[in-house]
């Protein structure tokens, strides 16, 4: 027992004198009080950081990440949309150009047809007019010849009367004269070409 208490005393005195030693052993001898202080102060620090700092920082970082993702998505969407619109416009432009070409082609064709039709119509009309004029001229000529023939017949009757001093039976003589006249060619009167002969 005695030796045990002696050892105990030794340990006690050693631990008491250790911090006051002139060497550097206090550097590596931990102090329980200081360790508890450490845990206390660190615990408070951690608790406050956990409650007040970390969630807010995380929240802000998450928010920013979300915003960046959103912006990238939005940009991609806009780009896709713009590409689509551009493609659509290009297609429409192509279509419009084709339509325009088509319309121009059709217009040109229509114009050509119209011109051809107009030309044909004009020609027809002219020919018609010419035909009508010819018919008129022929009719007029015939009437004139008729009148001349009648005049000649009358004059012939008159002349014959004067020569014969007698009145011819109108009907008989007229027929005779007509017959005689029919043998006379009046065609020379109807045209200038005939007159030359």
């Amino acid at each position, binding site marked *: 027992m005695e030796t045990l208490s002696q050892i105990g005393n030794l340990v006690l005195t050693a631990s008491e004198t250790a911090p006051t030693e002139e060497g550097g052993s206090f550097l590596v001898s931990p102090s329980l009080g200081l360790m508890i202080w450490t845990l206390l*102060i*660190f615990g408070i620090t951690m608790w406050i950081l956990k409650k007040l700092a970390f969630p807010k920082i*995380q929240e802000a970082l998450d928010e920013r990440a979300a915003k960046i993702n959103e912006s990238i998505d939005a940009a991609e969407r806009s780009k896709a949309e713009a590409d689509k619109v551009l493609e659509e416009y290009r297609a429409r432009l192509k279509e419009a150009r084709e339509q325009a070409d088509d319309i121009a082609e059709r217009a040109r064709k229509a114009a050509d047809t119209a011109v051809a039709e107009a030309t044909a119509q004009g020609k027809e009309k002219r020919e018609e007019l010419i035909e009508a004029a010819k018919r008129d001229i022929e009719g007029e000529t015939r009437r004139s010849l008729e009148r001349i023939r009648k005049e000649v017949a009358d004059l012939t009757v008159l002349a014959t009367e004067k020569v014969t001093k007698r009145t011819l039976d109108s009907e008989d003589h007229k027929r005779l004269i007509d017959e005689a006249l029919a043998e006379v060619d009046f065609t020379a009167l109807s045209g200038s070409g005939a007159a030359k002969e």
Partner: protein
Amino acid sequence: MSTRVKVLTGITIYLLVAVALAVIFGSSGKNEAFKPQNEFKLEPWININLAGIDFSINKAVMYLMIASILTITVMVAIARKMQQKPNRTQTAVEVAYDLTRNNITGTNLDGALARRWFPFLAAVFFFIWFSNMIGYLPLPTNTEHTVNIFGLEMPAFALYAATANISIPLALTLVVWFGYHVEGIRAKGVFPYFASWLPSGLEDMNPFGKAAIFMIEVVSQFVRLISLSVRLFANILAGHLLLLFMGGGLAVLLGLSALGALTLPMALAFFLFEVGLVATLQAFIFATLTAIYVGGAVAESH
């Protein structure tokens, strides 16, 4: 002249100047009164003793409080003013947050486990980072040496870091250590969890061999307690010791005042190295290893 020749010439000149200075000015004798390690000694400022445990407020507790307040203030302030178009500070915090979430947590844990552990991992990263960083700001904390300013005895400005004290990394490491064992047991059950410590491929081994390997695994689990805490503590302590020695401590210790002119540029270089790399790297490593341990504890095969 090649780069190698230039570097060697530079080092040679540097050493020659050092020797020349030592010869010219001589040593004013070794300084026995200056104890560099006392820069890291904790003087109780307010004595608090509860149930036999020393809860005294000292430099380390103050640094922990400053680190806590800074961490909370910066993170909450940034979190409250999160903008869709971030400024530089917000961007930096976002990068760090992303690092804790996707790199540290995301690559090692998934699902519910990641959700449960993310606050701890992120808080550990930011808390250690702020603790490390304020360790490079000179603060009026040296109560051992006071400066008389207009009749007031003010503590001298000194560099200190909470993480340069073993208690602080060790406390965090204990949380991690118990935490990942609990996760492992929760995921697999008590016996399967401990059985999973054995590496795969030992199915044909005799029970004694298995027991021996299991003992090695048990030791390695306990070594993690030391490796995780000491890695952080020793890195920061070593950095501060380097700064202390290069920033004048060496010159004082050896009584070679002229040497200070040569060590000060080194102090600047170490300072940049510590602030620019070590402070962030150690915070990152601590958080990443935590995530790896938790991930490993619940992983199907060892």
